[in-house]
């Protein structure tokens, strides 16, 4: 193909941008291969930290490429790939067609369509997506233009969605702080009758404000079961893991009162010598 920047009729800095883009794609390919090999080697899967780090690296690479394409969109739109006169077109026709191909390969095209379907099902506007502004399978150029030509919008096509999500999350947090956090009982507990809820407290939670110390005890009592996914344990039947262990040990469910029913106890630090009085 082109054997030097002169034959491309590109300015030096324009050629440099092209080279930078090529390097960025090379890095992205390398990162993808690395993740692929990692998944293949690890049984059953790489650690969560490794996967998160790989995802972050890939995202960073994609962001860099996107930024580069945005900054040089005029250039990349203008560039057209063509074989030079000395390219052995007859003997290397297959490679030539691959290099000149503008349409996506069928398999890749179906991936893109699947991703768009997922985006549409999630409520994302296809017109905001990178390649969808073409609205057809015809591509005039090799390069993708991630900028909305009409509005000249910012490079991230999901800005609107991010803003919506931020607003919704702020509303949810506000609602929780203002309303839900002050509720001593869940909806399910109220439906079954708060008198059946075993709080471990002698006083009613509805009548007076709880002291902070008691609130901590209440959370410590409830959170372990919730943390174990047992938030819906039938409080009326008092099913705790200790009941099950007692059944296995004694054959009945009548756990004596001296058995501590806290399923998860705070892990105590080893008791050392008390600090000297000052």
């Amino acid at each position, binding site marked *: 193909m082109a054997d030097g920047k002169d034959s491309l009729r590109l300015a030096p800095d324009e050629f440099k941008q092209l080279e930078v883009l090529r390097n960025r794609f090379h890095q992205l390919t390398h990162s993808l291969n690395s993740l692929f090999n990692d998944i293949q080697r690890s*049984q059953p899967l790489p650690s*969560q930290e490794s996967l998160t780090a790989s995802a972050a690296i890939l995202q960073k690479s994609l962001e860099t490429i996107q930024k580069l394409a945005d900054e040089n969109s005029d250039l990349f739109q203008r560039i057209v790939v063509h074989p030079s006169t000395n390219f052995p077109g007859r003997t290397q026709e297959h490679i030539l067609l691959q290099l000149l191909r503008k349409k996506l390969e069928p398999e890749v095209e179906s991936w893109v369509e699947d991703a768009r379907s997922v985006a549409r099902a999630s409520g994302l506007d296809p017109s905001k997506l990178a390649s969808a502004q073409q609205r057809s399978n015809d591509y005039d150029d090799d390069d993708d233009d991630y900028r909305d030509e009409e509005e000249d919008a910012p490079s991230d096509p999901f800005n609107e969605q991010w803003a919506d999500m931020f607003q919704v999350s702020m509303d949810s947090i506000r609602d929780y702080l203002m309303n839900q956090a002050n509720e001593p009982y869940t909806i399910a507990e109220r439906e079954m009758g708060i008198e059946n809820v075993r709080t471990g407290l002698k006083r009613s939670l509805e009548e007076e404000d709880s002291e902070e110390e008691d609130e901590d005890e209440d959370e410590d009592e409830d959170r372990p079961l919730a943390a*174990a996914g*047992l938030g819906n344990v039938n409080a009326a039947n008092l099913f705790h893991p200790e009941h099950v262990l*007692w059944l296995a*040990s004694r054959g009945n469910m009548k756990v004596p009162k001296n058995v501590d029913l806290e399923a*998860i106890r705070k892990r105590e630090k080893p008791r050392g010598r008390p600090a000297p009085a000052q």
Partner: protein
Amino acid sequence: MPVEVFLITVVPAADTTKARSVLHGYTETRPVTHRFTRVRHVRRLDQSIRGIPILRSLQSSNPKPDSLAQWQDLHSTLSRQQYMLTERVDITQDAEAAVAAGQPVPMSEQTQKGERILRFNDFPDPPNPRVPQTVMQRKQIDIREPGPLLEQHMADSGFSVANEYIEETYHWWDNNNLEFVLWRQYNDLPNPTPAPLVQAPDQANWMVPDMSKMEPVAPFWMLYVRALVDANPVDRMAERMAEAHGRLGKVEKELEGVFSFMVFDRRALDTRYTGEDPE
């Protein structure tokens, strides 16, 4: 006497499939073992009977039973303190037959006469700063004998059935000789009165319920990770115990974020019996 060293945690019923998938992958066990076991709790109402009265006849029998050493261990233990023991029989095949029939089926002759396990679990050791908090350990004796013979030995030793339930378990093993058991119980059996320890000749076989129609006791499973530490040779027991603690600690660390192993009051696993049956 062997020592069982174990970790315990709770797995909500909704997470069972995920838990099983994780344990499949973690232990690389194929296929998983799925069992139903009838568990009967036995105790001596006559507290004046100590040890195993039939031990002498077992010792003088010819040939001596393979389980003689275990009977001797149990005799020593029960001479000092009375305990609740469990008699366990695998009813998996009969349970599958009951599900296929859509109704309870009598225990098959094969199961009736097959191997039973008499299990003694000691009161777990108290917390020890040298043992990780989540690890519990207790002495354990398993005596394996054919059903009718074991039941007769227990009856001759003064035991009778207190209650019974069915246990459903999944088992996985890993290369470190650790057993992973996902386990839950069913105690609402069709016949609320437990069958007598020794079946009378004219008595019908115990009815195995249709498990597909049974409700488990609790909306969660228990997950055990256990190692059985051999008592022999005695002089290296401490070394083997420390090694078992290390293996369990490694499992706990590797499964961190997936399973959160819990610290329980050891009194919830108290098997000591003082002669009082709850109403």
